[in-house]
């Protein structure tokens, strides 16, 4: 992407009236441990947010609250206009619209790649099998591994598995994609293929929230970077502003550690 395109993307206004995700004073405890402290954040439609922070900062917990893999105890979370609650129907609606990619892929090892992809469209979306398979092959081509369709996850490399996991989430045609450290479990030589897939997805206009330490990825696609530490959002802004002019000492410390690590 050229510099001018990037500038254009940055300048694109996000309509404030219809955010894709709203987190409003969200609090969560594990026992006595306060893991999310008054977290408030809006994600606009088609916005791409990268969440970073040291381990144990609550970033994974926050993203997992968005599709209720974790349950928050205080505050409101509204996804695509539906508030998360104990209402199972609301939860079903939200999970259909929100795709998730995990650090450890979590493909279903007893199903072939194709079956992994068609399972949810067939059973949740009630799509006919042939149609679901066509859709799945389309996405496999998009992540560039259509030839692996009839293999089992255990026969694929980590990078391939993660691309399958992305394709699996996309088969549900989600409006929002959540990525929970998608490249952290990968060998270095496989990180690029997964990031390329994610960049392509970002450029297609998907709403994305991505927990990652890949700063290159953040610079390239993120509209906004959110820095979390000890359960709270410390600072947020455009990647350029965040990485080049960090305001808080905590972000400065984090960035210096990240850079030392690379």
């Amino acid at each position, binding site marked *: 992407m050229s510099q001018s395109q990037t500038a254009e993307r940055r300048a694109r206004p996000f309509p404030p009236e219809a955010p894709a995700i709203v987190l409003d004073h969200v609090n969560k405890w594990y026992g006595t441990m306060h893991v999310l402290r008054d977290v408030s954040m809006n994600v606009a439609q088609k916005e791409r947010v990268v969440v970073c922070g040291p381990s144990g900062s609550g970033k994974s917990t926050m993203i997992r609250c968005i599709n209720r893999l974790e349950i928050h105890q205080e505050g409101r979370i509204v996804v695509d206009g539906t508030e998360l609650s104990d209402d199972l129907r609301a939860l079903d609606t939200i999970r259909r619209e929100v795709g998730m990619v995990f650090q450890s892929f979590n493909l279903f090892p007893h199903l072939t790649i194709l079956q992994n992809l068609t*399972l949810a469209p067939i059973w*949740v979306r009630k799509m006919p099998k042939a149609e679901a398979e066509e859709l799945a092959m389309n996405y496999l081509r998009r992540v560039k591994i259509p030839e692996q369709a009839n293999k089992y996850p255990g026969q694929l490399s980590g990078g391939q598995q993660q691309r399958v996991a992305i394709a699996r989430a996309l088969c549900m045609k989600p409006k929002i994609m959540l990525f929970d450290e998608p490249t952290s479990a990968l060998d270095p030589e496989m990180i690029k293929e997964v990031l390329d897939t994610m960049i392509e997805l970002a450029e297609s206009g998907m709403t994305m929230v991505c927990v990652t330490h890949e700063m290159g990825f953040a610079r390239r696609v993120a509209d906004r970077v959110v820095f979390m530490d000890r359960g709270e959002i410390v600072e947020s802004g455009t990647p350029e502003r965040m990485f080049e002019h960090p305001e808080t000492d905590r972000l400065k410390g984090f960035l210096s550690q990240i850079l030392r690590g690379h």
Partner: protein
Amino acid sequence: MSGTAQIDPVPATAGATPAPVIEERRHAAPAGGPWAWARLNLFGSWWSTAVTLGLGALIVLWGVRLVEWAFINAVWSVPYNASGQPQTAACQEARGVGACWAIITDKYRLILFGRYPYEEQWRPAICIALFIGLYVVSAMRRFWRRELVLIWLVTLAVIGLLMWGGVLGLAFVPQDSWGGLPITLILATFGLAFSFPLSILVALGRRSTKLPAVKLLCVLYVELIRGVPLISLLFMASVMFPLFMPEGVNIDKVLRAQIAIILFAAAYLAEVVRGGLQALPKGQYEAADALGLTYWQKTGKIVLPQALRLVIPPLVNTFIGFFKDTSLVLIIGIFDLLLSGKIALSEPAWQSFSTEIYIVLAVIYFAFCFAMSKYSRGLERELGRATRR
């Protein structure tokens, strides 16, 4: 034999440095096939040779005596007197040196079919064949389709029809007269066919986080049933249960024992299944949740296929245990295979030949149990092949 051999190199090498021996082994093993292996492991030293020869002599001696007893000196049939009584003098004479298989040729129908009317015993015989056919069909993955349920229902209906009769010109045979192998197969087949699904529900219930009442019920069920011996459950089913039933309601004895067996087996199987559920990585549940699958879709498509595969060995272990435990129904007077065998021994002429009867019973039980274990190993291999790296 290799067990003894592994011990001997220790005294032999205790004085010397051990390294050359290891070297020697590594080179010797692939070199010369079974002979080299035997020389190294069985005749490695004079002490090892002595143990090998001593044990070898014992095995040969026992083997020869077993063959003599079971085949060469065995009495295969005995004459009958005018009133049809077996004349067992030949067997009595051979006692200790030869088996009396004549008791089997004389009593095999009693052992296999119990007190089922003699002329009608072709009916339970067909039932046994149907049961075995049903097992074979169910074992083939080719038949793992919806139709299999239909095959089961039809087969079981036909078995019921044959055993009871009373229609199509078949004489009615009350359940009190059933016995032998069909009873054992009925108890085992229905027992496992019903207890397995029940155990899955109990295991799922016990892990439920959203339904505490269901969870409590499942915990209570498992702990209560597991805490008492099967025999006491069978007694309860046979003696106490009728006391609680209203006047005139009478559930037959086999059915009551069957229910007791189902409940007992389900409690054990539930814990095995729960082990599989716990062994499944949390990420599998989360991935299924994130895709929007409902609880039952997640359980049926993702969780159970993987969890049950993980616990095939302990599952089959429990299956085999319960197949044999069905023999406990003899204490409440149900004529299963084992009790039929005991009845066969009650005739005065045959009383002293229990060994032969029990050997035959053991062989029958072994055949079924070994088939189960062999099949499960094959299944593990087959299911494991696809997912292994």
